[in-house]
């Protein structure tokens, strides 16, 4: 299986802080790769490096065989790589329909307004925003805005979707709903790179997981393997001996 996305030896420094350091991994066609790590591990920065918001100091990003390192975000989007943000960015005064139409018309396919709107209505249906299409985006609830963020990215018909903590701040019902949607996305052949703190969700969704700590690659493998890796446990909790002690008492 050829890699859809290949990230090779990415590094990025902000002032004195080395946010990402010599990071490499790949995402295959149609797979869901989870990206986890303690807070401050550099996960969102990785997304920013992939979609062109920041230029890496060194390393390369290769998408569908093409080198897109440092390419402007709008070009990356045109190639079929869409992304959501941790802090949602609705186009507040525009309607939900218009928000998604932007995604549809300026995404991978160069659609007209009419064609874009057709795509939007379809996507809105199974993301669950169909009844809110005419509302101004700024008036949605947090869950609604998260769904909008996702829907908008989906409307651009990406091959790879970068999801940045799309479950944060949702209650259990909303979380379940969102997980269903993400699984559905995968069945349509869209690969997903997902950052998440809700462990249960990311463990069940991902086929593989990459663990980051302090900007560096820490571990990689199936969810089960990663969950039992002492290095990972230590990174999250501190000291494996402590954990062992806690388990025995």
């Amino acid at each position: 299986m050829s890699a859809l996305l290949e990230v090779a030896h990415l590094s990025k420094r902000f002032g004195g802080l080395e946010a990402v350091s010599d990071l490499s991994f790949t995402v295959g066609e149609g797979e869901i790769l989870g990206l986890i790590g303690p807070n401050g591990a550099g996960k969102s920065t990785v997304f920013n490096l992939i979609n062109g918001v920041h230029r890496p100091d060194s390393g390369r990003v290769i998408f569908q065989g093409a080198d897109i390192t440092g390419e402007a975000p709008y070009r990356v989007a045109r190639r079929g790589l869409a992304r959501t943000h941790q802090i949602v960015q609705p186009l507040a005064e525009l309607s939900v329909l218009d928000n998604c139409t932007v995604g549809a018309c300026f995404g991978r396919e160069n659609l007209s307004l009419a064609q874009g709107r057709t795509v939007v209505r379809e996507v809105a249906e199974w993301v669950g925003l169909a009844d809110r299409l005419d509302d101004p985006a700024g008036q949605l609830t947090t869950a609604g805005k998260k769904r909008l963020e996702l829907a908008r990215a989906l409307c651009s018909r990406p091959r790879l979707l970068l999801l940045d903590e799309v479950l944060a701040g949702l209650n259990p019902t909303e979380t379940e709903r969102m997980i269903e949607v993400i699984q559905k996305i995968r069945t349509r052949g869209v690969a997903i790179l997902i950052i998440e703190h809700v462990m249960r969700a990311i463990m069940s969704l991902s086929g593989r997981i990459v663990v980051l700590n302090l900007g560096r690659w820490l571990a990689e493998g199936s969810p089960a393997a990663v969950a039992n890796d002492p290095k990972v446990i230590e990174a999250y909790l501190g000291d494996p001996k402590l954990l062992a002690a806690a388990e025995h008492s």
Partner: protein
Amino acid sequence: MWYRPFPWLIVGAALVYALLPYFTDNIGLRESLLLAAIYIILASNLNLMIGYTGYVNFGNIVFFGLGGYVCLYLVNDFHWPVVFAAFAGGLAVSALALLFGLGILRLRGAFFALATIGVNQAIAQLVTNFEPWGGATGIYLSLDAYGPLGGPLQALWITYLLIVALMAASLLLSYAIKNSKFGLGLLAIGQNEDAAAVLGVPTPLYKAMVYSTSAFLPAVAGGIYFFKSGIIEPTSAFNLQTSIEAIVMVMLGGAGTILGPALGAFLYEELRGFLLTAATFSQFQLVIAGVLLLLIVQFVPGGLMGLIYRRAPRMRKILE
């Protein structure tokens, strides 16, 4: 867009506007309607930047002045017919704007705003020192320039009609853009430029394109207007105060709407006319405009159209 009623409303209103002075045979009315139309042209095109894309072009008057200069130069020195000359002015200024735009549109917010003032002042300075364009004295049109139009009196009526046509064109352009994919991209940029880029909107190109587009009709209008006046010189051609008043008009009427800038321009002109007879100092014009702008920005940022939409939400679909 001709399947919808709104564009036809614009055309109808423009026809009434054009024919009103004819049927009342009122030259005074024609003159004040002409001035209002000029302001509507300036405000509507400025709205493309401020209302759609969220970039404040403080120096928007430069398009008007430069277009005027190109037109008068072509008419005076090369005896071009005025319509061609004005049109050429429009094209030249748009092309220049595209070039400049690609550079200064990399700047955000206040820096872009200041850069546009700088562009206006720089061009004004260059023109003042440019001898082929009359330097500081400017260009004076000889009376026989009006010959092809049937003499000066007839020319006044013809230029009036041309300006009204340009006014209608400005409103129709605003409407066409707003309902196009290009317009949606602009609105996205206006809401959140970074998010728009991540969604695939080609922000640098679109910004340059709208800057250039917003230059065209004011430049053509400048050509016709200064042709009618018979004279153009740097201070009045690149008058920053007019530029600023255009901004107030857009905000007053409602940025981002189609009717807003037109309403705002009209109302502001009426207000100004009233003030000039009431107050002795014209300097207070700037003070009043400033207070008005401050009040609008603080309390009614959506302008008049914003107020209308809040009172009657259905109007959003009918009156754009």
